[in-house]
């Protein structure tokens, strides 16, 4: 196969998600009362970026053929934590940010340790750790409240040069600092290999355990960045069970839309980001068409159902019926 064709095949999911995002955003902004203005883009970006961070976190784990049902709770926990710590003078704020990100790393590392070294199934283990993280969040914020360094918050949720949403720039920076080095490193390749075929990877001497552990840990970090941004947008911390749960759910939807295979070994965080932004835009389409917001959960659920059913088209390619069963 020629080089460019190989590249195209590899990035097909990402490109498809990008296409969906462009089309959906075009429909969205065309029907938005204010039209395609920097303001509309900024609001949409701020909303979408939160899910994008959580979806990136989910991608890292899904690539290893695992799943992290606690990302939403790490997101909630770090939100509550940031509403206590990210405040005060510049230095205090900086320490606060570091502490929040460190907490995220720690949560991810705990998940990784339990799943990899404790040899538990990721589904059950992360549901249980999710309960613990939510409990901790509730301990920090029994009632919604707190505050955040508003200068920093406004800087990161505003616009650069009155045009570019700062949150998108922050997302780009995180991609360049976390995802790109990870996916190009030996351990990143190990995470992919472990998801693709753990036995084969093991036999070839790939450090699968360290690769998976790094993936889970970085997932915690990315979810924490999401939690930090939630605090910047809302100025408060809230231990909301429903919101944490729905972020977990939507992160899976975003990952699927973004062309990441839930069986592991395939896809990229870039695709998941486009998936997340597209998912958010689709969810908000209801508003520009003036529907009752009550319909939004149903609408998002149906989109999710359709998105996951799209994978069934692969069945048409099956030649041997035994390939139904993995």
């Amino acid at each position: 196969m020629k080089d460019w064709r190989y590249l195209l095949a590899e990035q097909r999911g990402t490109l498809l998600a990008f296409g969906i995002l462009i089309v959906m955003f075009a429909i969205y902004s065309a029907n938005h009362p204010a039209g395609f203005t920097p303001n509309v883009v900024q609001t949409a970006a701020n909303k979408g970026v939160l899910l994008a961070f959580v979806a990136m976190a989910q991608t890292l784990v899904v690539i290893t053929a695992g799943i992290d049902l606690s990302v939403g709770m790490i997101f909630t926990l770090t939100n509550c934590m940031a509403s206590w710590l990210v405040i005060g003078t510049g230095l205090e704020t900086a320490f606060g940010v570091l502490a929040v990100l460190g907490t995220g790393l720690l949560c991810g590392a705990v998940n990784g340790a339990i799943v990899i070294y404790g040899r538990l199934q990721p589904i059950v283990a992360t549901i249980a750790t999710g309960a613990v993280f939510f409990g901790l969040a509730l301990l920090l914020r029994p009632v919604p409240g707190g505050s955040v360094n508003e200068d920093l918050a406004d800087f990161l949720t505003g616009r650069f040069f009155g045009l570019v949403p700062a949150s998108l720039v922050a997302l780009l920076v995180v991609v360049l600092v976390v995802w790109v080095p990870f996916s190009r490193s030996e351990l990143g390749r190990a995470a992919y290999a472990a998801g693709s075929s753990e036995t084969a990877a093991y036999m070839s001497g790939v450090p699968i355990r360290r690769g998976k552990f790094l993936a889970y840990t970085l997932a915690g970090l990315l979810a924490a960045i999401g939690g930090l941004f939630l605090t910047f947008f809302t100025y408060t911390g809230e231990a909301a069970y429903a919101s944490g749960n729905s972020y977990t759910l939507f992160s899976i939807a975003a990952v699927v839309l973004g062309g990441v295979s839930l069986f592991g070994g395939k896809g990229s965080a870039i695709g998941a980001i486009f998936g997340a932004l597209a998912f958010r835009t689709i969810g908000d389409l209801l508003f520009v068409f003036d529907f009752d917001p009550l319909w939004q959960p149903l609408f998002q659920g149906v989109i999710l159902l359709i998105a996951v059913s799209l994978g069934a088209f692969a069945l048409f390619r099956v030649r041997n019926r035994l390939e139904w069963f993995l």
Partner: protein
Amino acid sequence: MSETTLGGIANRMPKFLRRADPAVLTAFACIVILLLLGSLYSRSFLSPEYLLQQLKVASFLGVIATGMMLVILLGQIDLSVPWSVATGAMMACAAAAYGPAGVAVAIPFGVLCGVAIGIVNGIGVAYLRIPSMIITLATNAVAQGLMVVYTGGFSPQDSATAAMRYLATGFTIPGVPNAVIIWALIGAATVFVLTRTSFGRAVYGIGNRERAAYLSGIDTRRVVMIAFAVSGGLSAFGGVLLAGYASKAAQSMGDAYLLPSIAAVVLGGTSILGGRGSYLGTVAGVILITLLQSILSVMQMPEAGRQIIYGVVIVAMLLLYGRAPASR
């Protein structure tokens, strides 16, 4: 300890102990330990009234966990439990608002709504080959959306029918709550189906290796589909009972049952990968979880502490005996 002494001890044990799964024994041992710890805290822990009350509370979880166990035995998982429970409860209460005929069909209608959710799950998993974790999350979201639209986002005003209340809180046999009898009946039926019918064989077979089960002539897709439908129906029935217990349905009444139902099944020694597990273990798991919750609430632990202890205990117990075999 060498292999022979272990065998020697095992030979001297009564037959039922020798055949028992170590995980089930551990779960029952944990129950005894919890009861002892509880009785140190308060004397009333070992009183028959308290134990019966616990059994009654456990039976709601028991009904829901039965469906979950079927699905987990297949090597799948049903994450649509929260809104299957709520849908069953809300739809049963909603039917009750439509006159006497509505009251009569309230319970079957609620259960049927759950079966419908289960059938969608089953079609997705069995025929479209979508990972169960994903499709059940999606149907959960759709069920939630439907209920939000139906109720307008508030808890519905309709209340449970007398029959629902009777099933959940009444006494047919003096001293034994009806809910416990229902759980016992459902449990007995499940044990019969799992151990004495070809359907049960097929469930274990598919859990071990679906490909092999298919090649030996089992219509594996139909079995998977039925199991998901039953799971949805049982979740909804659990919801109906809960609505009878509280005499009304509420928005997030099912949220508190997802983790416990999975935990009960897994703590009872059923392999999350499927193909292995006994109903006795699930019973032990359900009682264990209920006692743990009860002790934490008797100690007036705030919600935050409860969640933390709960998660930690589940991880700790799974680390004790739920680990996958060491790699290769």
